[in-house]
């Protein structure tokens, strides 16, 4: 058996181990790699900057807990930026598993940091089943879809919601998604109600949404952990995504090396076997 045959037949558990070590090492010995800002992330930052101070905005938590590593840094960055501009934030989720509680966790911890008060500076509407009906219905009346917030308090008792009837009073929407709900925010809310919108998506979803940015349906886009790290850099906040990018870059280098090695193994191994014949 040649060396290349051995490479081709390597037990996949060795690869898992190598990937695991590449992820683990940067947490013990921090590795810093340069992070470049993509035009889409810059546009997103500029779009948020252009939102008038003190406006009411929506941050949508359309992601499952499984993608928290990619999406939560985006949510935290969104709160940093909006609270710095004294914006009022309404959060909601179209994801039953975890969406409302993640919105609750992020908004409460960020509000504590900026001294913001629930009901006045931010409100968590929680989750409601049936996103098409929810998105369309909020165009007429948010209260008809969410009569109460996530903890059951009627919207009429929350001062922030006094002046909010529907999308007309919402200056900007930041959708954070790991699934197709972002399509519906673009096709229903942006297209039919004209609310300016940006999207933070998981890396798996991001390629699809570049077309939305090009068509002007999203004013900017953050793709995965890299996108979140770019935004942290733009905000001047080194947080989870920036820290994670060290491991991300190391694993990418490893995978590139393994792809090259695998291809060499395939072609050279085949040549070796042909020669032997």
């Amino acid at each position, binding site marked *: 058996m040649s060396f290349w045959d051995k490479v081709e037949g390597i037990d996949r558990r060795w690869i898992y181990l190598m990937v695991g070590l590449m992820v683990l090492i940067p947490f013990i010995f921090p590795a810093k790699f340069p992070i470049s800002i993509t035009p889409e992330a810059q546009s997103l930052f500029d779009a948020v900057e252009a939102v008038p101070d003190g406006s009411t905005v929506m941050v949508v938590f359309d992601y499952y807990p499984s993608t928290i590593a*990619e999406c939560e840094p985006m949510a935290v960055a969104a709160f940093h930026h909006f609270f710095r501009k004294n914006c009022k934030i309404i959060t909601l989720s179209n994801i039953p598993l975890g969406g409302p509680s993640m919105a609750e966790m992020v908004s409460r911890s960020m509000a504590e940091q900026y001294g913001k008060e629930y009901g006045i500076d931010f409100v968590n509407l929680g989750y409601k089943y*049936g996103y098409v009906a929810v998105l369309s219905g909020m165009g007429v009346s948010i209260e008809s879809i969410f009569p109460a917030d996530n903890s059951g308090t009627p919207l009429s008792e929350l001062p922030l919601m006094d002046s909010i009837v529907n999308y007309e009073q919402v200056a900007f929407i930041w959708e954070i998604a790991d699934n197709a709900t972002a399509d519906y925010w673009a*096709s229903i809310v942006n*297209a039919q109600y004209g609310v300016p919108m940006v999207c933070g998506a998981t890396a*798996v979803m991001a390629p699809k949404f570049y077309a939305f940015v090009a068509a002007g349906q999203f004013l900017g886009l953050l*793709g995965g*952990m890299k996108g979140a790290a770019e935004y942290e850099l733009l905000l001047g906040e080194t947080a989870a995504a920036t820290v994670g990018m060290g491991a991300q870059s190391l*694993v*990418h280098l490893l995978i590139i090396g393994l792809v090259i090695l695998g291809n060499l193994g395939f072609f050279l191994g085949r040549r070796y076997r042909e020669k032997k014949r």
Partner: protein
Amino acid sequence: MTAVEILQIWIIAFFTLALFSFMYKDNPVYKVAEHIFAGLTAGYQVGLIWDTIILQQVWDPMIGGKYYLIIPGILGCLMFTRFSSRFSWVSRVSLAFVMGVTSGIFLISQLHGLVLPQMRDTMIPLVDGGGFGASLLAVIVVVGVLSTLIYFYFSKEHTGALGVTAKVGIWFIMIAFGAHFGYTVMGRVSLLIGRMQFLVEDWVGSFAHIF
């Protein structure tokens, strides 16, 4: 850090490691974690639907005077007739309603919100003052869209000019797949990084509070 928080961290860490153990080989600890997850998810969904739909959207408003909600309520109940071979035809009434409403909503939103804006963005001027780079990108977009569409045109055999264009389309599709695959790798690695971040910072960090 309170005792409850530490317990929570340890439970999360146990299930994370239990699921990771599958990478070595299938084992009973992995199976237990997998079944608990499936059971919890099903239970949570049932509770959530009961609370956010049946109670919040049907029962409570109906008690509050919106009696017309009994109509969607009955339509929903009719869906359960599918369990009976004798009365399963009744569920078609509800299904017809769902299909009608869904196609009506989706036709508008997909056409107005996706197809038309995306088509409009393809019909861009090739020379718009953005320089050679912008014009080149515009040409690539137009060639990419047309050749990909032709690849999916199956009413004529892909020979001659049609075949060449379809081959160009395959190249564009392959490049798109490559981009998707690269992003997918990045996404999956991010998930692993997230779990490692939790294990190193939260779980290992909790040792100091215990020992």
